């Protein structure tokens, strides 16, 4: 955190977003594409990974803290704590692997019910790897139907070709911005942040030196 002492906070809201889904569906790749617009062979996520991105969406300066979880079942006992306070949850599956889609209903939706602390938390369903169109086994309509049943937003994307990646995060955040209870939480974070970033200072007029 830089310690510049400008009196304006550097963002309007801080949102916590969570990426969940089976191992190998491309959660980390999706995040890497979004935060640094690159694509790479990534090693599996152990425990949790964490990235921050500043964006301007809907005219608001936002700080997105994005938690990228491990997909493997062995790590699931750890994941419960990651859900706490999340305003948005992105459920990712691989359109070329059927089981990653069926696990959404069998595993991931249940995890959300169990651990999400936030009633109004926005959920988003994302089908990744649409660049492999010839290998696709989950149709777009199946995705849409699932999203309708579980009350999620829905998009198909490719972290590899970057198609729709930004839109995933953007639509999710716009929906959060539309939800007053989530907004209130996000701005509480800002307040806490201002508080912590600023040690007491004399009025600007007397401390402009150095």
């Amino acid at each position, binding site marked *: 955190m830089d310690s510049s002492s400008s009196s304006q906070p550097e963002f309007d809201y*801080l949102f916590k977003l969570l990426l969940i889904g089976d191992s190998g569906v491309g959660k980390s790749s999706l995040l890497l594409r979004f935060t640094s617009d690159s694509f790479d062979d990534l090693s599996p996520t152990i*425990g949790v990974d*964490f990235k921050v991105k500043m964006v301007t969406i809907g005219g608001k300066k936002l700080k997105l803290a994005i938690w990228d979880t491990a997909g493997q079942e062995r790590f699931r006992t750890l994941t419960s704590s990651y859900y706490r306070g999340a305003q948005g949850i992105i459920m990712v599956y691989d359109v070329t692997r059927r089981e990653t889609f069926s696990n959404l209903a069998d595993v991931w939706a249940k995890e959300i019910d169990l651990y999400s602390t936030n009633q109004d938390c926005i959920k988003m369903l994302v089908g990744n790897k649409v660049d492999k169109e010839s290998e696709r086994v989950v149709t777009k309509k199946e995705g849409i139907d699932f999203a309708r049943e579980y009350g999620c937003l829905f998009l198909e994307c490719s972290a590899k070709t970057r198609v729709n990646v930004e839109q995933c995060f953007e639509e999710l955040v716009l929906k959060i911005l539309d939800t007053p209870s989530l907004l209130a939480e996000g701005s509480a974070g800002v*307040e806490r942040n*201002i508080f*912590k970033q*600023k040690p*007491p200072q*004399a009025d600007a007029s*007397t401390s402009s030196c150095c």
Partner: protein
Amino acid sequence: MLLQGGKLHLKLFEKEEEELEMFQVAGRGPAVQRHEESSGSMTRCRRIGRGRGRRREVSDDDTTTTELEFEFKFFLQLSRKVINLEALQQIACCGHLNGELRATVWKLLLGYLPAEIDAWEGELASNRLRYAELKEELLVNPSEYLRKEDETLSASKNSRIMGVDGQLSRQEIFNGDHPLSLGNDSIWHQYFKDGEIVEQIDRDLERTHPDIKFFSGDISHSKRNQKAMRNILLLFAKLNPAIGYVQGMNEVLAPLYYVFSTDPNEQNAVNPQFYAFRWITLLLTQEFEFHCIMRIWDCLLSNPLGVQEMLLRVCCAMLVCVRRELLKGDFTSNLKLLQHYPETDLDYLLEIAHHLTPVS
């Protein structure tokens, strides 16, 4: 962030908790006395940035060796199970307390934290709970209190009331407490009496360090600080009716409140699970360059304490090495830092890891 007997455990910052620490320290007889004893020696310490309002004027470059030495001694103390208070007094008196350590040192010197590090967590938790209960009991606005009372009452009355066609009898409407009650046990009467104290406190808080934004300003966090300080002073007055609120208490509270509420330990806490899980389960293989991993493993495998013990010490040393960044950072920057551990002087890191080994 603190090393608590080699174990790292941190709490997320919570507003109520920080109010409580002030309250306890200010409100406990023996603690206040001890504070006065120790404040004599405190004044001999170099003052850092007060008045000009900057908390750390010292940049990393001109950090004196004494300060580093102090920190080192302090960390040594903290790696024990029980802190030697006398030793701590000596260190604190002659050393240079910086803002990063001051909160913890003061809490110990004031007797707010026990010398047994293992007891800190429980002690803090129970004190915080007690403060929350006191606030609930003594500072709640009567209408809120009565509403809650009503809810529990009406739950039991409901069945009866339903029987008489939904209408309340005249007596039932007026038997409660109300703002015009004159009886001494009326909570409304008490509330208005408290109002006078609150007004006095508020007038004084507005004039407490008016040149420092932390205490007075129109921004939300200074308002929040004022509110917290008002709660502390009011609770003290109510719990010590013979003393009440005396002007000047606001001034005594100010440094305590400032030091404890800006305690970095409370604000940038990161659950170790979020970073140390990977460090430990993967034996640090994802945190360093490949050739560094070899060096670290040399050290892990050769240490007589065993791989696991040494691994934990290396992890602690990793935290110690970036402590300055951690103490400056907030939650997000700290988590980022610990998940993407920066390049570091490996010799130094391993030396610290060895130093953390307790002398048996």
